């Protein structure tokens, strides 16, 4: 059964952090030194208030001592410079380490997506997979660059300030903790609410983009049917809902932050009031109280900063979970422990034995399919849309494994063969000849072992496509544009055919294009396909019956079962399902 790519992992906060760090080991590299430097840099913040206080008390009040003030300020300036350098150094170290770690995470997740089976890949939209390795990782970066270390420093500062406060007065320390306790108790709940609110914003962004994309992708239809107003209404609703969700989330976040501010202010007021009464009762000295007021600020500052960081952490955790869920998706088409050899190179035989297949949670797609394809045979699979012909072909390439039954190549169960070996021998020419940005030559040469230019040229010649190259402005070096958009669908397929030809497989699976192609290209495609399939076993998922006519063996699939097998002539003569399909096609193509 194939795995799904979940939209997010269900790891808890700590689990997510731990797993996130495990996947990005570079983040932790040299962290001890960075932390030590950060402590130095943070201490630098105390230099100015300390100097002001000392210089005022000892150098200004009760007789001016200029030398002392100058000396103290000189030392302070020196310390400031040192801590500033430390602070800059910390930042540089953090940036380098976290960026390296996030690059590791990106690459790891990217590779994993490619390692997943086709079925698993198809459980998630491509655009969403892209965001897992781009924007989702970006949301983590803010937190790991600043937030993580801030959280550690804040915690240290809170602990340090608490110890110092206890030294002056346990009663006042208790007051501070009591006042700030609600925040610490409520924090997890507030975090959950914020999490929900920002989750809603993300969902609204998705809905809004979907609505807007209709206006772009469906522009022709919308104009032709004059339904612009309706589409605009839907878009405006989506934009408004996104805006409202954003306002709600921000209001919540602002309220949470303001609560922190209020509690910090309350703590200060409480300390002054209670402290004065304690002083009157002789429990604390003036100096002690003044020092304590300063410590309260050292204490509440990081508490507030920490809540901000925790907000950021929520975002980071959400992003992390989405990336982790990709990395954790099991690879269900994996290499066997002890792979078997697929036999000598050359046209291979294919056999399907009582194969059953269903997509996860779906109805049966293939039922008890048994098929023998001798080496070198050209097979065409025909059947209506949804009959299971594409699935049948896919099983041969091991893009998916059957639920029951066995697929064999040269008598070897494909599950027992090394994937690398299998991919070397079985090559698919997909329906949409996907091209990479670049030239025709670079696209054809694309492969595990990039092919030299002469070999590419030779391939075009062998497939009889030199006349096509001659019609292109720069021949083989013609730019294909983004995703091959400068070429027509048929031309893209030509490139894919030459690419497959160079891959020199023993078995070819051809997913025939359904999109219309102009006749000149059509005949070139047919010519190239003939050259490609020469001397190999081939299975074509045929949408045009002309392909079936030309095949050695026709397999008719209906509702997941093989209903007819035979040559074109035999099946036409038999007067069954294939004969009917063929008759209607003949009428059509005149």
């Amino acid at each position: 059964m194939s795995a799904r790519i979940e939209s997010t992992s269900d790891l808890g906060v700590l689990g997510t952090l731990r797993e996130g760090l495990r996947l990005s080991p570079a983040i932790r590299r040299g962290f001890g030194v960075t932390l030590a430097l950060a402590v130095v840099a943070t201490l630098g913040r105390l230099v100015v208030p300390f100097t002001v206080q000392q210089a005022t008390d000892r150098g200004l009040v009760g007789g001016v001592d200029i030398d002392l003030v100058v000396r103290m300020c000189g030392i302070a300036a020196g310390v400031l410079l040192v801590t500033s350098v430390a602070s800059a150094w910390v930042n540089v170290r953090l940036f380098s380490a976290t960026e390296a770690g996030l690059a590791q995470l990106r690459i790891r997740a990217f590779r994993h997506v490619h390692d997943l089976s086709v079925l698993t890949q198809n459980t998630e939209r491509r655009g969403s997979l892209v965001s897992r390795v781009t924007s989702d990782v970006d949301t983590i970066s803010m937190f790991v660059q600043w937030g993580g270390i801030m959280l550690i420093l804040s915690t240290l500062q809170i602990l340090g300030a608490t110890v110092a406060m206890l030294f002056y007065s346990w009663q006042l320390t208790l007051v501070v903790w009591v006042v700030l306790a609600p925040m610490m108790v409520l924090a997890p709940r507030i975090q959950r609410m914020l999490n929900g609110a920002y989750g809603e914003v993300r969902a609204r962004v998705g809905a809004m983009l979907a609505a807007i994309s209709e206006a772009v992708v469906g522009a022709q239809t919308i104009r032709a049917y004059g339904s612009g107003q309706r589409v605009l209404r839907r878009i405006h609703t989506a934009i408004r809902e996104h805006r409202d969700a954003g306002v709600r989330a921000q209001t919540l976040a602002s309220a949470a932050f303001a609560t922190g501010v209020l509690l910090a202010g309350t703590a200060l007021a409480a300390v002054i009031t209670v402290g004065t009464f304690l002083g009157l009762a002789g429990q604390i000295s003036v100096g002690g109280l003044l020092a304590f007021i300063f410590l309260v600020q050292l204490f509440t500052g990081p508490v507030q900063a920490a809540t901000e960081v925790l907000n950021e952490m929520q975002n980071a955790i959400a992003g992390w979970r989405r990336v982790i869920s990709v990395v954790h998706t099991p690879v269900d088409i994996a290499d066997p422990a002890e792979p078997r050899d697929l036999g000598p190179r050359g046209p291979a035989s294919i056999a399907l034995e009582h194969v059953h297949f269903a997509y996860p949670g779906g109805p049966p797609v293939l039922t008890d399919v048994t098929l023998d394809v001798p080496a070198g045979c050209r097979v065409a699979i025909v059947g209506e849309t949804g009959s299971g012909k594409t699935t049948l072909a896919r099983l041969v390439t091991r893009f998916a494994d059957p639920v029951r039954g066995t697929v064999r190549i040269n008598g070897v169960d494909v599950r027992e063969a090394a994937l690398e070996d299998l991919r070397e021998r079985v090559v698919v020419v997909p329906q949409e000849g996907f091209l990479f940005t670049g030239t025709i030559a670079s696209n054809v040469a694309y492969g595990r072992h990039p092919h030299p230019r002469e070999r590419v040229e030779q391939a075009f010649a062998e497939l009889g496509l030199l006349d096509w190259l001659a019609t292109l402005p720069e021949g083989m070096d013609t730019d294909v544009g983004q995703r091959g958009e400068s070429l027509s669908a048929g031309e893209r397929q030509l490139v894919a055919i030459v690419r497959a030809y160079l891959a020199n497989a023993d078995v070819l699976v051809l997913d025939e294009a359904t999109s219309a192609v102009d006749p000149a290209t059509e005949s070139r495609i047919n010519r190239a396909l003939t050259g490609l399939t020469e001397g190999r076993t081939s299975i074509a998922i045929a949408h045009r019956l002309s392909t079936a006519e030309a095949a050695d063996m026709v397999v008719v699939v209906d509702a997941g079962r093989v209903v007819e097998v035979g040559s074109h002539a035999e099946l036409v003569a038999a007067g069954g399902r294939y004969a009917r399909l063929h008759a209607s096609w003949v009428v059509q193509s005149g």
Partner: protein
Amino acid sequence: MYALPGGAVRRSLLLIGRGIRSEPRTFALAIGSSAVWGAAFVGVGWLLGRLTDTVVVPALTGGADSDVGTGDVLRAGLLLLALAVLTAVSVAGRRIWAGMAALDVQAGHRRRVTEQYLRLPMSWHRAHPTGQLLSNANSDAESAGYVFVPLPFALGVVVMIIGAAAAMLAADVVLGLIGVTVLPLVLAVNAVYRRWMTPAVTRVQAERAAVSDVAHESFEAATVVKSLGTETLEEERFAEATHRLRRANVTVGKVRSVFDPVIDLLPALATLAVLVVGAHRVASGDIATGDVVTASYLLTILTFPVRAIGFVLGDLPRSLVGHERVARVVDARGYLEPGRLPLQGGGGLHLEVEHVELGVGRGRDRRRLLDDVNLVVAPGRTLAVVGSTGAGKSTLVDVLMRLTDPDDGVVRYDGVDVRALSDEARTGAAALVAQQAFVFEDTVRANITLAEPSESPITDEQVWDALRLARADDFVRALPDGLDTVVGERGTSLSGGQRQRIAIARALVRRPRLLVLDDATSAVDPEVEQAILANLRRQECTVVVVAYRTATIALADRVLHLEAGRVVDVGAHEELLARDPGYARIVTAYARDRAERDERDADRGGVAR
């Protein structure tokens, strides 16, 4: 014009001015809250000092003799508490309203951009890639609003700067001047910072786009990658782009790493300078000790507004770029203004195209898409349009449907210039089934009626009739919720052929007087296609069909052969076969190809069992 004129400074001011003017109330509230916050923040510091001097110290040093009573102590606490409340409320107000203002500015950009998408002609759409238009409405609109998040903070705390500067100068002119110099210094550092940062950030954005491009391309090619076993090759390609992004990010990080401590250092050093100079001036008897303390305290307060202004300056370049890209869409023109004439009559429409010319590009790059195209289709007749890739067939379809206006010439429905027709008249008369069958993310019913169920004049019965004609009734019935099934990207996915059949039903349900089919059955199984075409034949309407197959051509009364935007010939299929060699080549390509194959098979002798 939506675009901002002038140099960087003028454009920045215009951007901010326009944003504020678009949401004056929200911005006023945000800036007001920010000012209140600034005042409250300074107030807390001031009050703390005063309370220490007048309450805490006398009470504790005076012991039982002091004249500070319990009431005074409690009052001091309550005053501080009141200020804390004020600070908290103003912080919340500023954040909420600032966020709202930025979101409103972004939503405004998005509405303007999408309105344009629905108003601009197909020729404009065809000239702009989908990805670009989506990012205009998404990330560009978003970044155009970035600067408005920190803006109210920065504008509000200007009050703080003025107050602090005035207080410092009042305490002592010399010390005040030292303090005030910090400001221009910070701005100067910021200018240097921006000069270093802008190119670095621009590079990060480019590298980020590159990483996204590689990922997009690679994931879309996932099947090819798997089929050719090139996972490692792709990993290397992605890793290369990722490491370029990493290096760009680290460069940005280093610039920030250096500048942040420098910005923090300036007020700190100024404070030390105030102490040293202050000590001299106290010694010389010019000022009192208290003035020095006040001046150094005010300096630490200045750090905040200086930071806020830094945020705004830091976000400005990105917002300007975003706004520029949004403006390019909003300023685009070429709307197809509808006329007012209705269209009378029923049955097939009389379609005329006269001397239609259409080109793209300017000057030397100008290319003709349609060149003096003339055609007439009599009511109820069918015209097939045939031509090779790039001949201008889809452009002709756009012009026929008035999805684009020609540069010259005219298209007439029943003798009326389509530009004079009202939108209702035009869309009521003509229906298009586009080459890329488009399905809305909506129910099957709404995809056909294109209206809310409550507002639709089309009954379910009519919908089913249309689905039957398009041979879509069987699969729709099999869908989990029938007509109520949500289809489209996030709904139930349909195959290419199913989408095409939905699109055909959408056209037929309107009983159009002119039906334009742009290769509308390419993904449908041959058997089903035959049945649909037969059904179309029985409709009482004028049909223009872009055809690739002989069967479709056979449906037509006349055929128009289009090449390089020009009409090569018009006539019956047999006539064209006889006198137009180019046409003959196109339509016989299938047949020729089949003959070739038969021959080859004869040579091979057949391996089939």
